[in-house]
């Protein structure tokens, strides 16, 4: 029998970049041009096999407007991973992304897996953020980066697979279900050791 691991994932990013659309594509394999803006947050789950484990993603999709940022800690608290989304056609959204990364580094769970998603890659004609910039930035913070299109179902599965891969496997039985948190503690220990 395969082990099921519950992984809390939150989606962050500027308003209107397509966070909900990514979730919708990933969970329901469906795209809607006009998904209602998320107020507060919305919650969805999807189970994905990964190696000899089943990863059950508990996805918290947050609101993008800046004034909802004050609520974000509720959602990224205890998250194993964060998907930070920007819109490749909007330079502003990339700036917002950097802010989110900074906040996660400051207040987020330690060793949270960060994945940067450059959404709306189907609109490359209107591109404002070069792929190179995103790649360089992602490397600098040690995050996964991928350009996606929720509309055309490009790289959505890959995005979450990448996250799955980044989650360290359960090293022993004693860790139980809360692997993500335990893992976080472990990594903290290692960093402290190196200090």
């Amino acid at each position, binding site marked *: *029998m*395969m082990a099921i691991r*519950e992984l809390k994932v939150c989606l962050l990013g500027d*308003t*209107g970049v397509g966070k909900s659309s990514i979730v919708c594509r990933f969970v*329901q*394999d*469906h795209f*809607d*041009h*006009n*998904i*209602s*803006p*998320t*107020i*507060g*947050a*919305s*919650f*969805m*789950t999807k*189970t994905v096999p990964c190696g000899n484990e089943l990863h*059950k993603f*508990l996805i*918290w999709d947050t*609101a*993008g*407007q800046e*004034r*909802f940022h*004050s*609520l974000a800690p*509720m*959602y990224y608290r205890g998250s194993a991973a964060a998907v930070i989304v920007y819109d490749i056609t909007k330079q502003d959204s990339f700036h917002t992304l950097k802010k989110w990364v900074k906040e996660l580094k*400051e*207040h987020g769970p330690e060793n949270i897996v960060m994945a940067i998603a450059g959404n709306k890659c189907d609109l490359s004609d209107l591109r404002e953020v070069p792929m190179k910039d995103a790649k360089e930035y992602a490397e600098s913070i040690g995050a996964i980066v991928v350009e996606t299109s929720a509309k055309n179902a490009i790289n959505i599965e890959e995005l979450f697979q990448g996250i799955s891969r980044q989650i360290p496997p359960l090293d022993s039985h004693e860790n139980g279900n809360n692997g993500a948190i335990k893992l976080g503690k472990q990594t903290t220990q290692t960093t402290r050791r*190196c200090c």
Partner: protein
Amino acid sequence: MEDRFIIGSAKERAVSSPQRDLGNAQLNPSREEPRKKLCGYLNKLGVKGPIKAWKSRWFFYDENKCHLLYCRTAQDVNPLGSIDLSSAGFDCKVDADEGVFEIRTPSRVFILKAFSKQAMMYWLQQLQMKRWAFCNTQTGLPVDSVTAAALPANESLLNETIHTEGEGFLPPVKTPTDVVGLKAASLPAPQLSDALQNISLKHPWTEIQNTIYNICGTRQHPGNGRSISGAECPGTFSSLPFVACIPAWHREIIVQQPCQLLKETGFSGPAATSFRAGAVLPVVVCCDDHSMSPQELVKLLHKALEAAQQEKRASSMYLTAAEDRDRLELVRHKVRQIVELSSRVEALETDKQELEQSVALRDRRVEELQEHVQLLMDKNQAKQQVILKLTEQIAQDLSEPVQEADAVAADTLYKQQEEIEHLKDDLDAYRTQNQFLNSEIHQVTKLWRSVAEKEKVLLMKCARLQARSCQVESKYLMMLRRLQEASPDLARGEAELVKSLIQEALQWDAKEEAVEALQLNPVREYDDYGFMTIPKYEAEDWKLLAKIQALEIKSNNLLSHTAVEKPLGERWAGMAELSPSAELKGLIRCGIPVEHRQRVWKWIVTRRLSHHHAANHYESLLRQCERTEHPASRQIELDLPRTLTNNRHFTSPTSQLVPKLRRVLLAFSWQNPAIGYCQGLNRLAAIALLVLEEEESAFWCLVHIVENLMPADYYSNTLIASQVDQRVFKDFLSEKLPRLTAHFEQHRIDVSLITFNWFLVAFVDSLVSDILLRVWDAFLYEGTKVIFRYALAIFKYNEEEILQIHDSLEVYQYLRFFTHMIGDGRKLMSIAFNDMNPFPMKVLQNRRATHREELEAELSELERIKAQYVKEQAEQVAWHLDGAVSEEEEEM
């Protein structure tokens, strides 16, 4: 007669005054008599003077003289005048004003007015009686030859018959006590017009006397009145036994004649001595005849004596003349005088002739006028004849058609009759047919009604059955899903079976949907406000759930429509004018019917915002939007196409509501720059637009929600008040639903992750439109308490189900959509407003205050930690730079 009575020289007044005194003296004892006296206030029409006006007068009847006397007020002593009733006739004109009647004496017509018709009748009757009584008694007394001749022989008889006849015609009128009789005297004169108007200008002297008398206030001593009028007048006059029984006019004549005679003698010069001397005797005789007053006689005789003496002196002068010449002279003088006189006589004669001529002229003229009158009368007669002729003609004309009908030939008549018979038959036939058809219609309607009712019941049954089957179906599908999830653990054969079953179920569903469209016509795709009744979900299980939901709502609506909503609708229809009351609150809580919602929302919004509802405020905000772009406009633009995506009014590309929504939100961003735009406001404004339709009303509705209903800082930068409300809500939840709270705590579930947006957008997109609008009805009227009540009610509604889920993930998953699954709005409403009682506003406010304090403290603490972290980080970076080499070494 009246004129003679009052006006005249002082001498005459001196003569007349004893009479009045006499009258008064007789009036006095009679006042003490129990018998009713005829007196009272009447209005008299003034005849003389420039203005004819009604004057209020006190009228009283003098029994002895049969005179009706009148004065200004009842207290006045001297009457202004009198009316002789013995020879008077009474009349009341039909076309005159109410209470107006006339007393016609030979010399004058008095027009009087009583205060009512009854009073008038009383007066007239009384006057008739008085006149009759007087005339009856009069006959027994010696009468003046002239009067006797004037009176018809059978006068008394006639009077009697008239009187009895009069009695027969008119029943005796009851005495109108308030205007007639002695009591009325104590009352003020009823006419309220200017007192000056009542003053008789004609009798200034009497007026003055009366005034003075009234001032003195004593009837026994009428002061100046007596000293002036009765000075020369010995008391013996009134004590003469016969005077009292002489009728008034006799006495007047008696007094009159000598006076006139005296006047004449006064005017004629001494030249007429011889003639005058001869006249003395007749005067004396006359005086004797008329039993003149001794004093007057003395005076007259004195005058005659004087004239005789003068004549005697002249004669003696003639006799004593010394010579013939002197005598001649005297004679000549006389002759000259005679000539003079004869010439005077001639002049007078010519005068007389002239006067005669003018009289003749007048006569001719009178004749002419009479002729004219005759002519007019003739004309009148001719006209009357013409009228008569015409009337006859009309009568003839009216009867002519009959004659014409008679003239119609007999055969055609026969034909027509036949036709009429036919028509009658037809008519009968039609009538019976009509009756039958009426009964038919009645029967068919009854049948139709029963069938319709049956159909309704069947439809309801059908809806319920379908809902049930859908529920079963969804449960089955859920089972399949679970099995699928567990498929790795299942045996190969079983796993394949599950797979095929899922495939089958999905296909079956698609097939069923096609059939369903035929079966369930009543389930419309969109509701009254354009919301999709069955939301389009991609996931199969949700699709089914949505369908169940729609069917449940429908069956609920069907069940509640006849039982609850009809009487409610009637109560709403009766509420034309809205005013805050407990009844209205209750009605609003039950949900406003669609046809009244717009009106009531408008009323609620304008009522609460009237104080700063400046005209053109919205337009000026729009102008400001055009001038300068608000930083929020980008976000607004981004959200516009994503608003109420399940409503056709917002999703259609040609929608008029989207541009309206844009303007409302932009205007609001200037109306409240502290908020600008917050995601979620778009949904509030959209709902307002759907219901109110008008852009400006929707704007004010949004203002009402944000500025009146929600606490401050609900939508501002940190959303602090919203966060506070989440904590307050958790408090209420633990208080009202302790079991559920324990359950959540056990599974470490933070409900605020779910409920946050309920509060921020007042359940828009969470509840089914039908229930949502009902919640909004109460929310707009009562405020945020309604949101708390409903949020609690939603948990209560599903409490049992939630308690059965023991996995935190599943609880979250359940909570995500469970609001959409509520179908019974009435049950939810009853929970919200009955089961959640008591819900005092004070508790809510207190909790808000304490939680806000806490949250603010926490936030500032967080800020402090943040600042510390930043500081530490900076230090760490500095250290890191130093220790970079060593780290590398370690890795190596």
